[in-house]
């Protein structure tokens, strides 16, 4: 039997770590999704030059492991003259990294809106901004909700990577506790549970959102 009393004895400390994870996750999800959304719209709708820039950004960001980006952010941003603490640096990395993935989700969803939708809107006298806001985005958002939520869960889990450059959060706290107590199994089982507590509601919120936005899509043609 695993002695869980070690875990419960250290629970307050781990909960503080979980709070930081929640904080980093929230910044990553909100910041990354917003930035990625803007990138995705630009990547699908803007002129050729902007579209190319977006494609290059996505290619570079996705082509390198997040672990490497964490080092790059932590050591590289200060080299560029940015005086920011580790916490800010890793959050910037997480947001920028997430944005690339969100961008591709949103861009794909926009491009998946049938051409006929845009033609119909134009035939009714609608133009660029109105078509985007009233016709394309509502459909693209609905289409991209499931992968976006899935992505949000990923971000929370990826937030553990910030510990590699010494930013303290749940996984960092867990290793500290393990080193103190020499009870890795019970501690990490408990930490698993804490991560689950954060991720599960996000996944659940997806289902609610999907139901809300499923209006008009009860049956596919």
């Amino acid at each position: 039997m695993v002695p869980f009393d070690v875990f419960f004895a250290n629970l307050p400390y781990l909960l503080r770590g979980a709070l930081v994870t929640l904080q980093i996750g929230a910044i990553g999800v909100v910041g990354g999704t917003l930035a990625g959304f803007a990138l995705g719209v630009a990547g699908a709708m803007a002129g050729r030059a902007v579209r190319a820039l977006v494609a290059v950004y996505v290619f570079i960001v996705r082509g390198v492991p997040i672990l490497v980006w964490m080092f790059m952010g932590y050591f590289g941003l200060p080299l560029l003259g940015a005086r920011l603490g580790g916490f800010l640096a890793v959050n910037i990395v997480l947001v920028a990294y997430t944005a690339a993935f969100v961008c591709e989700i949103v861009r794909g969803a926009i491009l998946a809106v049938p051409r006929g939708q845009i033609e119909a809107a134009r035939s009714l006298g609608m133009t660029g901004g109105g078509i985007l806001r009233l016709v394309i985005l509502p459909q693209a958002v609905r289409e991209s909700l499931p992968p976006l939520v899935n992505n949000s869960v990923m971000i929370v889990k990826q937030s553990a990577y910030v510990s590699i450059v010494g930013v303290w959060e749940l996984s960092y706290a867990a290793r500290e506790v393990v080193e103190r107590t020499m009870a890795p199994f019970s501690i990490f089982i408990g930490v698993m549970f804490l991560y689950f507590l954060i991720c599960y509601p996000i996944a659940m919120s997806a289902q609610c959102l999907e139901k809300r936005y499923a209006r008009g899509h009860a049956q596919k043609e």
Partner: protein
Amino acid sequence: MSMIRVRQLEKRFGATHVLKGIDFEVAAGEVLVVIGPSGSGKSTMLRCLNFIEEYDSGEVWIDGTPLGYRKDGNGVPKRQNEREIARMRTRVGMVFQSFNLFPHRTVLQNLMMAPLHVKGEPKDEVRARSLELLDKVGLGAFAGSYPSRLSGGQQQRVAIARALAMRPQVMLFDEVTSALDPELVGEVLGTMKQLAEAGMTMIIVTHEMAFAREVGDRIMFMDAGRIVEHGRPEELFDHPRTERLSQFLLRSRR
């Protein structure tokens, strides 16, 4: 004066010369039916009339106003800006083969979107008019439904009502029954006939020959990017003057 005037319309897709100089006019209240084999350019021609397809040269006039290009001081045609084109499009309703209703909006919202957003008309007025239009196409009961709940024929009638909600001067129909199950074709054609009888100026691209003869004031037969024959339904259907039209009619009868 003609409601629609088309002069020397030309369109190429890369190396393919799709429209090789199309000329015709449609008077107010007249119904022109365009027939022809697939690939003859009839759909492309229709889509040029509201500049959804940008033609390369020629002129399109709607009720005396050019659509697409405007001649500058030296008589050189300049593409109109998006605003001008959009404003002209509000005068030309279009119905598509694939309905293209907005799936995230209810039937009523589909009708109301453009009058509210494009024309900025008062909401109550638009709602009343839209409901009336839905009644007219026999779908008043579906105002609050989403398009996916409707049959193809019902969706297409909503699409007609949506175009009419903008109070266009002209209606274009691009093979609007081709995607429908045979038993649903009749209800859509019925709605179009009703519209024709009410005096709407219409151009209809269709493969429904019986309907063309019944509703068309004039028939235009296109082949390979040109108008081959153009005249009254009796003339074209009963006395085709060209081999190409007689062949086409023979094949369509099967």
